[in-house]
């Protein structure tokens, strides 16, 4: 009894020390990201901004995957819906209501996710759900490609970055850095919400469902309802990210609903670290780094990207986050386990 208490005690101390190191890193990364406009040219700034948006989008996907245990291959479709709602609204000149537009886009994503989830989650799971969502996203892409007023396959270009009017002041987001900081704020808010959801009672319920679905229903958890809720939240986050993305890229195309966009969060999550909240964020930036570093290696870029990915999976099983924590534990054995 007493020895187990001691074990517990030392365990907590170790977690604290290691998490302090991570916290320092986290703050440093946040400062660098916030200071990006002063540090780099507009090219890298654009990439980092896009990566932030994709990181939020992937965290939303991972909420569904690592918490609720459902793999969707069609999240690109929801991202695309958010982006098109935002694009259409901004092109129609509703830029002063941009925040409202984001809310509407988010709700649109949530509504579509609800409809899909309501029907699909009762009937399918696992890979079947994955392929079903993939097909729905493909269907959306085809529909957009055939919709002339949404620009067919060339999409909607010339999306103006908005000037958001609050009651007392106006926020001009037209310039690159201004919108970039808006993205930062958006990322902080969305990641905050996702963190809160993942670590609160809902997160605990969902994890219970993922660990043992039958046991979960025998402690009184409504499995279907909670999964549906996770599906809707994930869809809302994807659509919200899409809505913020549209004015950043200033163009939306049906390819947003394509397989590449839908598989991105999977890659990010696995690369960054499975079942970890920050995994997709780390993975997104790692992937961006690989992409950026290999941008001049035209022709062999695919081989190099594939090789790096393969290397990472074979060598770092726990993804970057998992391996990093393991590495820390090894470097500071004194603070690690007994």
């Amino acid at each position, binding site marked *: 009894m007493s020895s187990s208490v001691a074990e517990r005690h030392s365990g907590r101390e170790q977690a604290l020390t290691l998490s302090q190191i991570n916290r320092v890193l986290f703050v440093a990364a946040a400062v660098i990201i916030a200071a990006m406009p002063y540090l780099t040219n507009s090219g890298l700034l654009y990439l980092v901004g896009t990566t932030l948006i994709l990181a939020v989008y992937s965290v939303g996907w991972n909420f569904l995957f690592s918490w609720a245990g459902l793999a969707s291959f069609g999240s690109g479709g929801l991202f695309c819906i958010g982006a098109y709602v935002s694009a259409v609204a901004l092109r129609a000149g509703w830029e002063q209501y941009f925040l409202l537009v984001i809310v509407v886009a988010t709700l649109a994503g949530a509504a579509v996710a609800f409809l899909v989830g309501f029907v699909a989650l009762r009937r399918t799971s696992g*890979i079947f759900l994955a*392929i079903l969502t993939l097909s729905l996203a493909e269907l959306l892409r085809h529909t957009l490609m055939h919709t002339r007023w949404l620009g067919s396959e060339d999409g909607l270009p010339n999306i103006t970055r908005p000037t958001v009017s609050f009651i007392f002041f106006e926020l001009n987001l037209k310039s690159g850095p201004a919108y970039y900081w808006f993205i930062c704020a958006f990322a902080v808010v969305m990641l905050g919400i996702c963190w809160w959801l993942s670590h609160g009672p809902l997160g605990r319920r969902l994890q219970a469902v993922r660990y043992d679905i039958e046991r979960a229903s025998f402690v009184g958890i409504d499995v279907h309802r909670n999964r549906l809720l996770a599906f809707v939240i994930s869809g809302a986050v994807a659509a919200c990210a899409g809505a913020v993305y549209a004015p950043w890229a200033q163009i939306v195309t049906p390819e947003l609903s394509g397989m590449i966009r839908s598989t991105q969060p999977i890659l990010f999550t*696995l690369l960054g670290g499975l079942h970890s909240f920050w995994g997709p964020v780390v993975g997104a930036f790692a992937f961006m780094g690989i992409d950026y570093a290999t941008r001049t290696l035209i022709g062999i870029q695919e*081989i190099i990207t*594939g090789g790096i990915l*393969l290397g990472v999976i074979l060598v770092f099983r726990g993804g970057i986050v998992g391996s990093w924590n393991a590495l820390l534990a090894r470097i500071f054995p004194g603070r690690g386990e007994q």
Partner: protein
Amino acid sequence: MLFTLINSLTLGMAVFLVAAGLTLIFGIMRILNFAHGAFFMLGAYLTSTMVQDMPGSVWILIGTALVAGVIVGLFGLAVQHFVLSKLDGIDEHFMLIATYAVMLMTVGGIKSVWGLEFHSVDPPPGLDLGVDIFGTFVPSFSLFIICAGGVVFLILDYVIHRSWAGKLAVAIARDNWTTNLMGVNGPLGTKIVVAASFALAGLAGGLLLPNQTLSPALGDTFLLMAFITIVIGGLGNIRGAFVAALIIAVIDGLNTYFLPSFPGVIIYVGMVACLLLWPNGILGESRL
């Protein structure tokens, strides 16, 4: 109408040829192999290198396709040995990303070896024109593809469900550990099935070569369709894949016939409907 059906059947069997290997590897390793399309393409490129512009006869086409299949199967063994076997026992999604990485590298390799230009290989003499069936003109290469699909299905079905080797493979897929206890070399069995799956991809690439255009995007054309096929049919279920390929053929035929202004779109609608009706695939999920 008969004509539309035969053509759609051609598409269905072509998709089945690609899907057969995909469903096989799913049956034994529970992975969706993203690299399958790339290896299909590799088979096609290898065959085209061997036969140049035109295979001398049907048998030369089949022979070279088999050789290409064997080579691709060896590549598959390498992938299994250096990548997949190393990921055994950890989260299955890592396999997914691994096959994605293998796909990237394979496509990159194909581009650097064969270049980007379009290539075309013609059907062998005798299969380049058409025949008359019940007053309907039917391209003979369509018949060739339909026959190839049927033969490959029959062989696979026999091997898996009737033969000793197939029963062994099923045993491995169901319970690798126990099979090992009983003195059967499970890892070797897995290797053989994985190699067979890749070899089927290569064979399909070779057989379909005269039907398609060689370009580094060839793999994508079939991969999604093959995914859909094996999901509709029931993952890992070779009979399911065959039935699903037939269903896809019918859906595509109806699409062409009744809704010509949206070619190729109804397959997705059909697939969504199928999944909602039969959530585990028409013939159910199966370990091989």
